[in-house]
């Protein structure tokens, strides 16, 4: 495994996530997690439901903050960043692909894909609409650009979601059970796309799944159970 720290993209150091359930009982969703993910890696996080893998993904994706421990991105500690700065990183650094697709129903396919660009504060090196159309062409969905998400099949919706995740040229794709809600044929197509992103475009991919076949696409699998890496 590559271990030169300059290539380390993500580092979690003694990360804990706990919830106070009652006044006294404290539930640990993550216990003392240490992970290092290299740039360009294709890695999967595997575990049964309730194991804490989603929480882990949320912390890596900067959607959630650990209760204790440190998170580094490109060797920069992010736990003490302002909310706006963290939003900016989510916008520019990470692309999310969710099990539920999470497209916005009242926006068209094209608008959904462009949406992250609207939230970007810096001037873009590309024209968002052109880029979105190019991605739609690549994913074979060009004629659906003005459709609304509810007119699309699950597989198509997930491909739109992937296009949305790619619009900002992210360095990291976080995919949470990306095939969990679609039929197996579409699932294979989606996984082919994700494979290509890693192989051809050298985008770092972290795949969260409980499915061993899906996890096999990754070169490395981090197994998690009861909030601990095993």
């Amino acid at each position: 495994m590559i271990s030169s720290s300059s290539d380390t993209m993500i580092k979690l150091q003694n990360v804990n996530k706990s919830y106070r359930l009652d006044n006294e009982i404290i539930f640990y969703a993550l216990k003392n997690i240490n992970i290092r993910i290299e740039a360009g890696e294709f890695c999967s996080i595997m575990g049964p439901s309730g194991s804490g893998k989603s929480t882990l993904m949320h912390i890596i994706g900067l959607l959630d903050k650990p209760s204790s421990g440190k998170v580094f991105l490109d060797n920069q500690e992010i736990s003490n960043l302002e909310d706006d700065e963290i939003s900016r990183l989510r916008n520019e650094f990470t692309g999310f692909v969710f099990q539920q697709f999470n497209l916005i129903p009242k926006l068209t396919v094209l608008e959904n894909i462009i949406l992250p660009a609207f939230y970007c504060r810096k001037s873009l090196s590309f024209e968002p609409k052109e880029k979105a159309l190019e991605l739609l062409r690549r994913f074979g969905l060009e004629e659906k650009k003005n459709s609304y998400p509810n007119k699309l099949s699950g597989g198509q919706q997930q491909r739109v979601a992937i296009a949305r995740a790619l619009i900002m040229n992210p360095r990291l794709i976080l995919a949470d059970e990306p095939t969990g809600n679609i039929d197996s044929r579409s699932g294979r197509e989606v996984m082919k796309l994700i494979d290509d992103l890693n192989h051809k475009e050298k985008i770092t991919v972290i795949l969260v799944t409980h499915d061993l076949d899906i996890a096999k696409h990754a070169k490395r699998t981090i197994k998690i159970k009861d909030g601990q890496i095993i």
Partner: protein
Amino acid sequence: MINLAIVFKEGLADFSRNKLRTFLTSLGILIGVFAVVILMALGLGLKKYISDQFESLGNNTIFLVPGRILSGGGFSGSASSFTGTFDNKDVDKLKRIDNVVSTAPLTLKSANAQGTIDEEFIDVMFSSEAIQDLMGFEVDVGRFFDKTDLTKRAKVIVSGPKIAEKLFGGNQEAIGKKIRIEDVRFTIIGVIKSKGGGGFGGFDYDNYMFGPYTTGYIFNPEKKFFRIAVKTKGEQYVSQVKEDIKQEFLKRYDEENFSIVEPTELMSAVNSIFNIFNLVLVAIAAVSLVVGGIGIMNIMYVTVSDRTKEVGIRRALGAQKSDIMYQFLTESVLLSFVGGFLGLALAYVAVFFISRYFPAYIDLVTVAISLSVSSFIGITFGVFPARKAANLEPVEAMRYE
């Protein structure tokens, strides 16, 4: 930076999906703006009406009135002011004051008068020929009475157009006709053009008749006048002339027994009363705007909780708290602005019909105020729900179904 066009589009899409809810929410603002605009339009109309009445008197005219007139209330002042106090000596004194162009003593006689068509209880104003210029009467047919009529104490009458119509069936028909006032027969020598109005603080001259004050002594054996109108050379002399008159009259009368009234002064007093009156009414109507605002706040809270998941998704895509805030604020402003716009439009239609009977009108200030107030309400009452949306935790929000 977040694109305003797409925020608008999303807001409108949300509205059209919940048409009834949107309409009912806007209704509060609609009614509030409608009420405020109507009241402002009525207030403006009333003010314009009054100032038109006063303006017809010109800004270089002064009235001497018996008793003390406090602030405003129009010409009538108190009931006692209709009884005669002044006499010819006063008129002569006024004539000698510098920069006085003309004076017109006034007495009133109310009596039954017999015309060719009808009999009517009428008011006759006896004055000098100067009253024509002072009041700005224009002769429609015939002529106004002159100095000769005054010296000859001629039994001539000039009629207002309305009363001429009532008694004789028209201006032309009235000329040369005899009219009996009590036992005295007068000849109608002229009819003036309509001055319009009447009511608030002014005489309805169209329903008056006018005669020489010397002839009027028949009904006024004491030769007392209840009012003297004085015309100065120009507006700039008014205050000096007022002061001179005061000094002169204090020699003869107590301070409580006469007032010197300037129509423009009266007008501003009347205006300030109406302004306060109008302000109170508008403030009451504005309460309904606040209620409308609370309605918007309520529905925006519902919208925020309906769209919690959407907020989570947007945050995951990199939306900052301020982006979420602006989005919901835009929607609440849109909601109240639309309500305000519809209220204004409705008020416009209503004022169009009202203006046939009453001089109500909507000015640009009213339009600007109503639209900016409704936007302001959208912001004020939208800010709390919007802040709630902005402060949702991304993960919690995305989990929300």
